[in-house]
């Protein structure tokens, strides 16, 4: 049995410690908002927060996590500026990559609330979106920054 803390709750899962965190989150905890895209950390669809930092859960084994706090897209509050902005700007098409991109964005904005264009592109440049929502992702981020400033976050 391995203990992990996901979205503020402690869970005990009966899996070998080398099991990837992604499959534990999806299959054991049934939190399927975190997506499998490539399995090798190339696309970013499986991005979660580990102690607030964006990490690709497909490349992390559950045994490595220890007492770190994990947040998935389901754990990001429904009124989070990124979630609100994504709806307001109608960013999403198929939506499969978006949880990962939103988690990456949320982590970026938590660290640097007013990133410049280069910083935004730099931190999202290795996230893959096949639908081509990039122009709207950029709009979504700008909107999230505005919402954060307005809400005094």
């Amino acid at each position, binding site marked *: 049995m391995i203990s992990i803390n*996901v979205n503020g*709750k402690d*869970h005990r899962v009966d899996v*070998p410690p080398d*099991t*990837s965190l992604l*499959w534990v989150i*999806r*299959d*054991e*905890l*049934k*939190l*399927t*908002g*975190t*997506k*499998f*895209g*490539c*399995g*090798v950390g*190339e*696309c970013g*669809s499986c991005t979660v927060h580990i102690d607030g930092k964006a990490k690709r859960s497909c490349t992390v084994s559950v045994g490595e996590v220890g007492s770190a706090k994990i947040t*998935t*897209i*389901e754990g*990001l509050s*429904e009124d989070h500026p990124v*979630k609100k902005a*994504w*709806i307001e700007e*109608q*960013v*999403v*098409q*198929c*939506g*499969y*990559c*978006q*949880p990962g991109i939103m988690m990456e964005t949320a982590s970026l904005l938590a660290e640097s609330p007013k990133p410049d264009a280069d910083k935004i*592109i*730099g931190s*999202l*440049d*290795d*996230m*893959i*979106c*096949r*639908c*081509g*929502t*990039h*122009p*709207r*992702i*950029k709009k979504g981020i700008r909107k999230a920054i505005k919402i954060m400033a307005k809400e005094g976050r």
Partner: protein
Amino acid sequence: MTTSFSRREFLIGSLAASGLTIIATVTPAGVKLANASDTKGEISGLQPTAYFVVTPDDVVKVMVPSSEMGQGIRTTLPMIVADELEADWAKIEVLQAPAGDAFKSPILKTQLTVGSASIRGWYMPLRKAGAAGRAMLIEAAAKKLNVPASECVAEKGIVRHEKSKKSLTYGQLATEAAKLPVPQDPPLKKASDFRYIGGFVPRVDIPEKVSGKAVFGYDVDLPSLHYAVLARPPAYGAKAESFDEKAATAVDGVIKVVQTPFGIAVCAKSTAAALKGREALNAKWGPGSHPDLDTASLEKDLRDGLNKPGANALTKGEPKKALEKAKKVLEASYYIPCVAHATMEPMNFTAYVQKDRCDLWGPTQAQTLTQGVAAQVSGLPLEKVFVNTTLLGCGLGRRARPDFVIEAIIASKALGKPVKVLWSREEDIRHDFFRAPMAHQIKAGLDDKGNLIAWAHKTATISILKGFGETPKDGIDGFALLGLVDSDDSPTRSPFAYGIPNFSVDLVLSDLPVPVTPWRSVQNAPNAFATESFMDELAHLAKKDPVEFRLSVLKDNKRVTRVLETLAKNSNWGKPLPNGSGRGIAHHYCFGTSIAEVAEVFVEKDGTVKVHRVDVAVDCGPAVNPDALKAQIEGAVIMALSTALFEEVQFAKGGVSSENFGDYRIIRMSEVPEINVHIIKTDADAPLGGIGEPGVTPLAPAVANAVFNATGKRLRRMPLKL
């Protein structure tokens, strides 16, 4: 935190999250809707057609026959119904339709989301359905209030009688209205009265996608669900020489090893166990049918094909004679390699085959086909096969194939349990059915005034039709010829846009075993790369501006002329650019839509091509959902740019050697240009063109033409490399 849906609850799937409580089943009488908690009774209410029901509790439930793969169809089709019905959008609930005759595409005659056919096919039938409902509700109100129907007005879910100031909600009228005959030719709204069509309606699928609760095929969960992954042959035609079934089943959690026509399935209690089991299986494969096939030999085969006679698909006038008479003759060849669909959600499907029924859940673009193959493979009658379409993490044409469905059915049948087959990214790329690679050769002639008088075109490719199990009649595969040889009356509406008096197209089909299938726009995009690059070459030969030259060839095609003129006006066409920069234009007509794009590029000293800006002008008839339309064009431009600059599937030793996103390069945020979309305003009654695919078609040639404009170098092979 475990959410375990019961099977019945799952039938409503992700819709449950938005508060819906109905399930749908198809019966010979059509679609019946029933409350999930009380399946004994059908919902009473007004249901003049299969596409919606107005319930006595004042909700309008709209059935969407098309698969939602990002194009926003779960919003756009209900907008059409709601508008003619005069429903209140706040009271609309959207349901994914099951497989059923009523849901077959009016254009494609099968339930299939391809060919940019959803809106252009469903627009009139759904308007008529909505209008019939509105007329019946008005009639019912008139009866109830004992006033003439002509004095009643329907507005946002309420019928009002102005004189008496009385009004009734649709919910209050639904039961009465249901007793009335369904008008066969109800009066439709005038375009100026549209409430939702042509306006902005937020997409209904976005909130659940943003919350992380949306259910894609990969996310399907059922009680006692098992998971399967397959060991697949690395080369085409390769047979398994050995595998260690014992070692695989010895892995904790692995239940069974099952043979399928596509590979060896390792079935387990969890994904992680199935993956470990597949490793332990250690399958070894023979060399396959074409061990020498690699990237270079594929290209050589197709380029050599251009020297073969081929089948004549079309001859107009006398191109040979005209070429002899021409003042100037130009000849060029082009090559477009295989590209992968690489949908963000890898292939997957879930099946539960029981003695008396087969339930399916997953991301499919092809409900009719899925139901048909499931009946065959499971041995059950068609009406015992239930197709539940989840959200699709991209479709792009790949999910119109049934291979992954068959795997899931075989595995479930063998296990007697519900089984979800999951593909890795490596499998998804290596076992894709690719966009068919193409070699093109075009020879054209100009008269002494620089007029284009002859065009002789030959293309060599791999047959998509053969991949569907059909034999190309007289060597002709219509998929290969889209945008070159087609008619505006066909379901694909992709004729060549230019009227050239002497014109011929010949087709050579290769025998190589590389599997191919439609990829967003089918062969329209590769054909447009050849035709629109060559148009640019001809314009320079004729010493004419590329826009002017095209307009001269178009002659009286007013629709395309307007698109090109609008684009030239809005894209800084003809304005000076700094050194190293260039602009290129291309146009293509497909799925009834005329679309042109201007790319503005900068070529760096090391030859890297950067695309800064893309302007688009599009005429697809009246825009039903302009914001979704814009999103489709933006996405199409970006996907096409990815193929123009980066994508090529690599082959080696008789199979695919590309593995994952590390070596199958897809466009990144920093490479995405500014995109401006100009939607041409048309008459309200102009025929609708498709919008999901056309956006990809002119982009690659526009970029190649821009590179020529910037550097004087003509790039005739994709991906474009200097």
